[in-house]
């Protein structure tokens, strides 16, 4: 479905993603997991064509996203959806207009048909009847669900999820997680989920890619990841502070910097 070849991204002096190959299989949920700053969101944006890679290529539906024209990229995006970390609902539009937005933009459907489609999508996420609310009137969980409905409005072939459960209470996080899994099963959607939530990632994914410092350190099914004896993988999935993945990002010992100051 989506393939990345020798993908890398450098921001200034920071190597966010080191050259890597990645394959997102169709009609499956792929979780890209890793700690904060491991490069997983950057990788997601590269796969979605939102960032230009420093090196490498991204193949989607047989076309290289890094080589096609802007117009063609926008045409291909009609087959994509994305749920952003902070929902990214359009502030000036209410829930109905947010979900109907892609339908208004890319179809000539009569308004009564769009109204029914929006009602179906909102029913799917449990928010039918909240069409009139503005984004500022929604809780974090509700905004995520509206963003999910909007991403699904055009029934895309692939949906990208950037930290779909971050900042949510356990119930809302559980609802979103189930929603992704159920929808993927029902409509045979390809989903790419970026998360640092180990439980959610391993629960919903068919495939897991684990990243650290811009590199892929493990990939496989959730069962394979759970059974991995790689010390970095074990530290991440067990959430232990001590191990090969250091808590501190400082490059010099604190004692040394104190002595230098003195």
């Amino acid at each position: 479905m989506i393939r990345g070849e020798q993908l890398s991204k450098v921001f200034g002096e920071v190597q966010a993603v080191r050259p890597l190959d990645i394959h997102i299989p169709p009609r499956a949920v792929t979780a890209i997991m890793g700690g904060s700053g491991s490069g997983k969101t950057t990788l997601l944006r590269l796969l979605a064509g939102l960032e230009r890679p420093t090196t490498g290529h991204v193949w989607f539906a047989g076309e290289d996203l890094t080589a096609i024209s802007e117009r063609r990229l926008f045409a291909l995006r009609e087959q994509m959806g994305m749920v952003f970390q902070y929902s990214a609902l359009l502030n000036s539009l209410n829930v109905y207009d947010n979900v109907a937005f892609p339908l208004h933009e890319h179809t000539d459907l009569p308004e009564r048909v769009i109204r029914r489609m929006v009602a179906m999508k909102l029913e799917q996420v449990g928010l039918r009847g909240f069409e009139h609310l503005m984004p500022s009137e929604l809780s974090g969980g509700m905004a995520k669900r509206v963003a999910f409905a909007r991403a699904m409005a055009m029934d895309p072939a692939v949906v990208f999820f950037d930290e779909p459960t971050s900042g949510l209470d356990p119930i809302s996080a559980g609802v979103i997680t189930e929603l992704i899994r159920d929808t993927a099963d029902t409509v045979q959607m390809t989903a790419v989920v970026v998360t640092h939530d180990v439980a959610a990632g391993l629960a919903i994914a068919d495939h897991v890619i684990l990243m650290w410092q811009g590199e892929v350190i493990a990939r496989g099914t959730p069962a394979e990841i759970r059974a991995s004896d790689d010390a970095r993988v074990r530290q991440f999935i067990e959430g232990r502070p001590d191990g090969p993945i250091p808590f501190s990002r400082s490059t010099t010992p604190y004692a040394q910097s104190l002595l230098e100051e003195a």
Partner: protein
Amino acid sequence: MTGSGLVRILGALGRFCIQGVHAMGDGAVLTMRALGHTLRRPWQGRHVVLQLHALGVGSLAIIVVTGAFTGMVLALQGYYTLAKFGSESLLGAGVALSIIRELGPVLGAFMVIGRAGSAITAEIGIMRVTEQLDALRMMAVNPLARILLPRILATMIALPLLVAVFDVVGIAAGYLVGVDLLGVNAGAYVAEMTAKISNHDLNGGWVKALVFGFLIGAICTFMGYRAEPTTEGVARATTRAVVVASVSVLVMDYILTSFFL
């Protein structure tokens, strides 16, 4: 001053100039790319009208107030000066020419920068911070066409219309002060005004308003679109947009005035 101090100053000046030229080039390319969508489907007409309403109608009250007080103070100052030469009858021509040729377009532009330009930058900057621009891209909607283009076209259309309102209100307010308050002959006031104002003066005012509108739209949308995606970044971009747009209006005013003299 030491040699190294001079080198540091020259280095900083060089960096400032390079960054300025780079930003101008980047802004010009971005604006041209946005304007390139003018005649391309999907049409953005509805969004231009919505922006025109937000920018134009929203700025109308401040334009009327500014125009009125500008006309009134011009009449007071003009009368004071002209009375020294016994030429009070020229007051109408002086007030009208000053407003139509210079103060209408420039002060109108400043009011639109303060009222609408800063709002454009802040709105686009916030859309960037909250990933709304990326969300538009992912919904296969080009933000250059949907967000930037309508705002640039709306300021280009709105400013000449607002300047026309400014001119009319300013001249009317000048008349009230000159004729009703200071006692200048009404016939002389209007006759001198209509005799001294030519189409050339009016055209100069329109062209200035159109160019200033384009500059304001282009600069304020660019600053918002390229704002650093943080709350501080949006605040800095908004301040910079107001300063750069105001200075650009003054520089362009000099260039156009020398052209239309």
